[in-house]
């Protein structure tokens, strides 16, 4: 298998695809639904927000390994952060997955596992779907967000 595929489908990604973390619904909180009409990926992000702090986050839905692993890793990295911090992290994450593939990936902790997406521009939307949905949930827009 080629090196860029190894980068994309790292063990961390495959593990989060197989056993997504925080894969459940939350009641009494904010939620938003994300949809990628190109491939049919669909997920819901649930939030508990106390003041400005995301005290709990979860997701449910179906999608490819990249979108599922990205959602799972996102929930792990967001819990306990303020909404402003989460938004800033989304910006850095987006920069990382859209950077030219020669550039060394930014260090975003666990999220760095998704840096391999840089070599697959058509998969950027898969990796960012959960984040767009998180943004909508954080803004308490209980509506469908689309990657298109």
């Amino acid at each position, binding site marked *: 298998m080629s090196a*860029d595929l190894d980068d994309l*489908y790292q063990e961390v990604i495959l593990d989060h*695809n197989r056993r997504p973390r925080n894969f459940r619904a939350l009641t009494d909180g904010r939620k938003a639904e994300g949809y990628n009409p190109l*491939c049919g990926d669909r997920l819901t992000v649930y939030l508990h927000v106390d003041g400005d702090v995301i005290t709990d986050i979860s997701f449910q839905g*179906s*999608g490819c390994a990249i979108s599922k692993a990205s959602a799972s890793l996102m929930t792990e990295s967001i819990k306990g952060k303020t909404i402003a911090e989460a938004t800033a992290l989304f910006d850095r994450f987006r920069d990382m997955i859209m950077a030219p593939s020669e550039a060394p990936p930014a260090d975003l902790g666990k999220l760095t596992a998704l840096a391999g997406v840089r070599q697959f521009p058509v998969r950027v939307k898969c990796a960012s779907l959960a984040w767009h949905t998180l943004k909508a949930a954080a803004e308490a827009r209980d509506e469908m967000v689309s990657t298109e």
Partner: protein
Amino acid sequence: MTAVVPAGRGQLDVAAIREDFPILRQRVHGHPLVYLDNAATTQKPQAVIDRLVRYYAEENANVHRGVHTLSARATDAYDAARETVRCFLNAGAAREIIFVRGATEGINLVAQTYGRAHVRAGDEIVISEMEHHSNIVPWQMLCAETGARLRVVPMTDAGELRLDQYERLLTDRTRLVAVTHVSNALGTINPVRSIVALAHARGVPVLVDGAQAVAHTRVDVRALDCDFYVFSGHKVLGPTGIGALYGRAALLESMPPYQGGGDMISSVTFERTLYNELPYKYEAGTPNIGGAVGLAAAIDYLTAVGLDLVAAHEHDLLAYGTAALSHIPGLRLTGTAAEKAGILAFVLEDAHPHDIGTILDRAGVAIRAGHHCCQPLMARLGVPATARASLALYNTREDVDALVAALRTVQEVFA
């Protein structure tokens, strides 16, 4: 045209045919290109590419207007292209062939014109569960405008239309049946002749979406007895942006024009416009002349190769591919109708179609992953998406072997 003469014993000389398609010579990610996305669009033979070049280099002018030599040349080429399409579909007259952008525009044309003339509130349009969005949405739009209702023929789990249910849906409210000849997502070849006969018994006309049929099987609109037939040039080795609508002359004459503009009129005053005769009534504005000429070259190429040989070759490949894929553990074929054209759609237990598509691409294998513009069908199948390999005349058993080998890699990744 280069060597496309069939080899002995009535088989395609696939090696010679592959030589005619320059794009197949390239490598993708270091591997020979294995192009299995023919249901999305087919590749173009050198004969079509050369014809386009020759048209623009030597014949380009506007049609039906000029007195000069080039205009006559372009008009001749355009008219000849219409005759080629007529012959390809075995229509009775060239004026029954309307050039459109593709199957989608052909369906929209009928929905708008036939719809305006014949569909009223309370009427019904019958389509099927396996339709492409292009044979759903135009009818939904017509229903929204008129207050008519869409009725949907269900299918079996194998992907065959339930003709008993279809018959029940045909009532005195039915104004039109619109059904695909070959399903783009399943490969099912629908029994169009029976579908038409049942509708005609109740006086209901039938539109057939032939987008996935014309490159793979011989089509005879008079034998099918259908009232409208649409197809896209780019799915039959021709250029994008050109396609054709066949319509029974009596129906075409009874319908209002589609778009207004030049060429579709015989005289215009500010008080009154007289519409042109068929087929020009439905071709407002300067048409895609180059596209039509290129499409005719594609049809000539395919006809020289022999559609019966193409169909036999693809049928053989389909059987080979079906057997090969059936041996992959965890793979389930979606679409197992008894009558199928060259489509191998499937899902894998542990890998999403998008991940399959990405990994296959890295092995040079081009397939489609997604809902194939058939979201209602995906819902019926209970899957968000499928992976689809679709065959054409230039595909080989080696292409299928490359697909299978790449699928093993997918399984290793997601084991």
